[in-house]
């Protein structure tokens, strides 16, 4: 009855108060400080010639310290809240709310938009994962980016990334979630394109951004549809009704304790009133939709409403609504799935993630392991109650995830670039997590956690490997760091690093074990839970064995490509080298004296330490959090599952989750182990002997199709890029040929008219004015001649005038 108690707490508007805002403010402060340093750096000598070897100033390196401290502080604060405040609460009441920010921001119609934060077990897991892995990755990045002159900008965005992701997981409602969602997208854009002088990075950043936008549109539509649906379940469209709920259950111990009664006393708890209507808040939405499952509701007449108006549980009405002939819940969920697919790089939006490798390696680790791509999975978990309404939508998600997992695993097998292998691996593993939504349980989140550890370990190890190989390849006069910006080494240039990087090698090996699904490491446990969830999925419209089969094949491929990459990186000798394995001095390239021997052998302790820590995490996270039920005598629920159960309790529709029979579970585990071992053996046979040529570019048409990501890029080009470019070209043509010409014509006509007016002005108007003045001057000059100064003449003229006047008067007067 965890679900019941969960609802009883979430029906009460207030959880326990906690300073959740602190988790957002700390990384934000770090981002601001680093941003200030970045501004200071950008203001420095803009036109100065670039020095041959740029040494970042001490202040620039300070950015790394600030960023690391900020994220570690965030992690510590988050851990303190989770372990200090959340865990001591009884399981059914584990909900923290932030007193800051829960006030209403604005109200549109009946929708109250607030920036409230809350932390339930799901958010707690995500917070610990994001800030914990984030802290390790930051630590790694501070060392890794040590020589990059632009590192303040890097760390500003890295911190902002963490802040946005925390907002995403902590927000109680679609408004803060969407802010975090977009913040993560923006930061990923800036970080993928961090080396903005490299066209590939800029292209990848733009691609990631645009593909994400397309998904975001779908997400917005889905959310809008959901809210619209809720708006129509009130008493009247847009009106908020009140749902009265009475419990006929015996009071659980939790509420009994708080009310001072003994446990197990059957009683009628006071009726709870749940507002029904449009809302953006997750907890309110969940109350409205999920309450019918948890507590039998009583339909009542809202206060002040006409006699014939009642409020119904939203679930009942939403299930009846249709949009364009399809069930509303189906359409909304599929749209939300598309949004999540955009962020989590699933078919049809999977192509941006492999390209995102153009960013610095710590960014790849952060995006892939802890943040961003897991946002889609988190969204499914958060809105599980919505998906429970629509088996069709769940089927879409599961099929999409399974296809992505299979296709991406195939693509990963044929990549020639180490980081691209890992990128496709991420896409593939995310496919697993999507498939895990089938059960409506916590297995997807479990896989998020384990995957976070082993994928971060793999990526950071890859960063170490790339550095080592670059130093080996470019020991001669390569510019300082930041030039990872140039082409990454392909896998054929790897090899023989086992001796140079012993610690990294073991961490990588362990992470590969986890990725492949060996029971010794964590991936096995989460994958096992996913298999079980699919096998027992209550509302899947496709055959579960089919999905399971596809996932098993994926597991086989996963083991293959994981160990392929491992063998290419570490086993054998350096590529095309004549020396023996493990001897870094025996490179084929001539090494300048004193050049890179020190480099190659100096596996940075900090980097290796972080990778090792993650490797250990990859090893223990799975058994610790998800020790299988059938491995214990008491059939105990795995730790993480138990912790998350209240969150997922309302997600199962009318059908309660099926307990996995032990026999089935044993079978699934055996199968998972079997395909993993098989994949390992195949990889060992194919690549263990280091036939370097087999890593050559894929030759067959099918492998090339797979290596290219299943033709998605081609599809984008045909369906989106080309039409858009053609449209742009057509618009440019119209602009240049028609609009510009019209504008030019108008301008030319204006000029002509102006010229004519000028002529008229100059010659006619000015002529008249000048003529008048010239006439006056001339007349004056003539008249001035009378003013001779000769008195006699004046007299004569006077007399003549008088005489003339007399004559005139004489002749003309009558």
């Amino acid at each position: 009855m965890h679900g019941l108690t969960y609802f009883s707490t979430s029906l009460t508007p207030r959880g326990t108060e906690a300073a959740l805002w602190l988790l957002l403010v700390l990384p934000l402060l770090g981002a601001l400080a680093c941003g200030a340093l970045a501004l200071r750096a950008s203001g420095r000598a803009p036109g100065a010639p670039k020095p041959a070897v740029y040494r970042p100033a001490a202040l620039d390196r300070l950015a790394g310290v600030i960023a690391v401290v900020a994220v570690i502080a965030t992690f510590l604060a988050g851990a303190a809240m989770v372990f200090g405040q959340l865990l001591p609460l009884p399981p059914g009441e584990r909900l923290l709310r932030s007193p800051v920010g829960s006030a209403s921001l604005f109200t549109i119609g009946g929708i109250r938009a607030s920036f409230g934060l809350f932390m339930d077990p799901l958010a707690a897991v995500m917070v610990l994962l994001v800030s914990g892995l984030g802290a390790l990755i930051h630590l790694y990045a501070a060392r890794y980016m040590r020589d990059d002159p632009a590192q303040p900008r890097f760390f500003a965005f890295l911190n902002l990334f963490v802040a946005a992701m925390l907002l995403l997981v902590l927000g109680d409602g679609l408004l803060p979630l969407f802010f975090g969602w977009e913040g993560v997208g923006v930061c990923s854009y800036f970080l993928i394109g961090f080396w903005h002088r490299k066209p590939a990075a800029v292209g990848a950043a733009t691609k990631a951004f645009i593909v994400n936008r397309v998904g975001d549109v779908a997400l917005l539509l889905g959310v809008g549809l959901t809210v619209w649906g809720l708006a129509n379940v009130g008493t009247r469209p847009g009106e908020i009704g009140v749902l009265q709920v009475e419990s006929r259950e015996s009071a659980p111990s939790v509420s009994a304790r708080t009310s001072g009664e003994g446990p197990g006393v059957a009683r009628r708890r006071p009726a709870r009133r749940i507002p029904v209507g449009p809302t953006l808040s997750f907890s309110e939405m969940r109350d409205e939709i999920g309450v019918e499952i948890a507590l039998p509701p009583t339909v009542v007449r809202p206060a002040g409403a006409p006699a014939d108006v009642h409020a119904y549980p939203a679930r009942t009405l939403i299930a009846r609504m249709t949009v364009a002939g399809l069930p509303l819940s189906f359409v909304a969920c599929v749209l939300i799935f598309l949004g999540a697919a955009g962020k989590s790089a699933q078919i049809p939006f999977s192509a941006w993630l492999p390209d995102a490798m153009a960013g610095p390696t710590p960014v790849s680790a952060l995006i892939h392991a802890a943040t961003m791509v897991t946002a889609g999975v988190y969204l499914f978990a958060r809105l599980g109650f919505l998906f429970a309404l629509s088996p069709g939508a769940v089927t879409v998600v599961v099929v999409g995830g399974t296809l992505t997992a299979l296709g991406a695993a195939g693509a990963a097998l044929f990549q020639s670039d180490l980081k691209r292998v890992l990128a496709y691996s991420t896409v593939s593993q995310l496919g697993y997590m999507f498939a895990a939504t089938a059960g409506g349980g916590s297995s997807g989140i479990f896989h998020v956690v384990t995957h976070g550890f082993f994928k971060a370990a793999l990526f950071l190890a890859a960063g170490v490997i790339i550095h080592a190989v670059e130093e080996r390849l470019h020991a001669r006069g390569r510019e300082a760091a930041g030039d990872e910006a140039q082409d990454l080494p392909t896998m054929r240039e790897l090899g023989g690093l086992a001796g140079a990087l012993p610690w990294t090698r073991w961490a990588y090996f362990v992470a590969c074990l986890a990725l492949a699904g060996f029971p010794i490491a964590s991936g096995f446990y989460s994958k096992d839970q996913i298999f079980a969830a699919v096998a027992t999925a209550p509302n899947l419209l496709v055959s579960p064995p089919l999905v399971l089969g596809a996932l098993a094949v994926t597991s086989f491929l996963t083991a293959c490509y994981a160990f392929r990459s491992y063998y290419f990186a570490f086993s054998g000798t350096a590529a095309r080298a004549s020396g023996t394995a493990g001897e870094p001095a025996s490179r084929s390239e001539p090494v300048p004296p004193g050049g890179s021997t020190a480099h190659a052998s100096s596996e940075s302790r900090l980097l290796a330490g972080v990778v090792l820590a993650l490797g250990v995490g990859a090893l223990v996270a799975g058994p610790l959090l998800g020790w299988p039920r059938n491995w214990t005598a008491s059939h105990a629920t795995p730790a993480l599952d138990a912790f998350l159960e209240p969150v997922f309790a309302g997600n199962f529709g009318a059908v309660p989750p099926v307990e996995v029979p032990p026999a089935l579970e044993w079978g699934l585990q055996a199968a998972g182990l079997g395909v993993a071992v098989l994949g390992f053996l195949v990889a060992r046979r194919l690549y263990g002997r280091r036939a370097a040529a087999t890593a050559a570019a894929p030759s067959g048409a099918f492998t090339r199709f797979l290596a290219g990501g299943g033709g998605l890029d081609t599809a984008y080009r045909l369906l989106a890029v080309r039409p858009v470019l053609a449209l742009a070209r057509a618009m440019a043509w119209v602009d240049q040929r028609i609009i510009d010409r019209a504008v030019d014509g108008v301008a030319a006509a204006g000029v002509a008219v102006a010229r004519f007016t000028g002529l008229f002005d100059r010659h006619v108007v000015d002529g008249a004015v000048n003529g008048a003045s010239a006439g006056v001057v001339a007349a004056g000059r003539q008249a001035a001649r009378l003013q001779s100064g000769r008195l006699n003449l004046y007299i004569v003229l006077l007399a003549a005038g008088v005489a003339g006047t007399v004559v005139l008067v004489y002749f003309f007067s009558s």
Partner: protein
Amino acid sequence: MTGGTSGSLAVIGLRHFVVLSAVLFTLGLTTVATRRNAVAILMGIELILNAAALNFVAFAHYGHGAITGQVFAVFVVVLAAAEAAVALAIVLSVYRSFRAIDVTRLDTLKD
């Protein structure tokens, strides 16, 4: 204007006065117009004034017989005296400035 006048010249009538006045006026005007000496011009002005005064008296006498004309003549004489005084002062002043009383040289205001 023809009252009291006969066609003959035997009797002294209005016509004689008018003719005399006209002659006087003409002489005065001619003097004013032609002489360059400022004092001579003043003398010409006196002729003109007296021609006018003569006309006043003649017309008054032959008109209605009252003494209006004579009164005007007296005024004219007084005015002429005043005018002469002022004018001679001006001439004196001009002489001081120009060391001459030739009116053709008094053209410095022209420009």
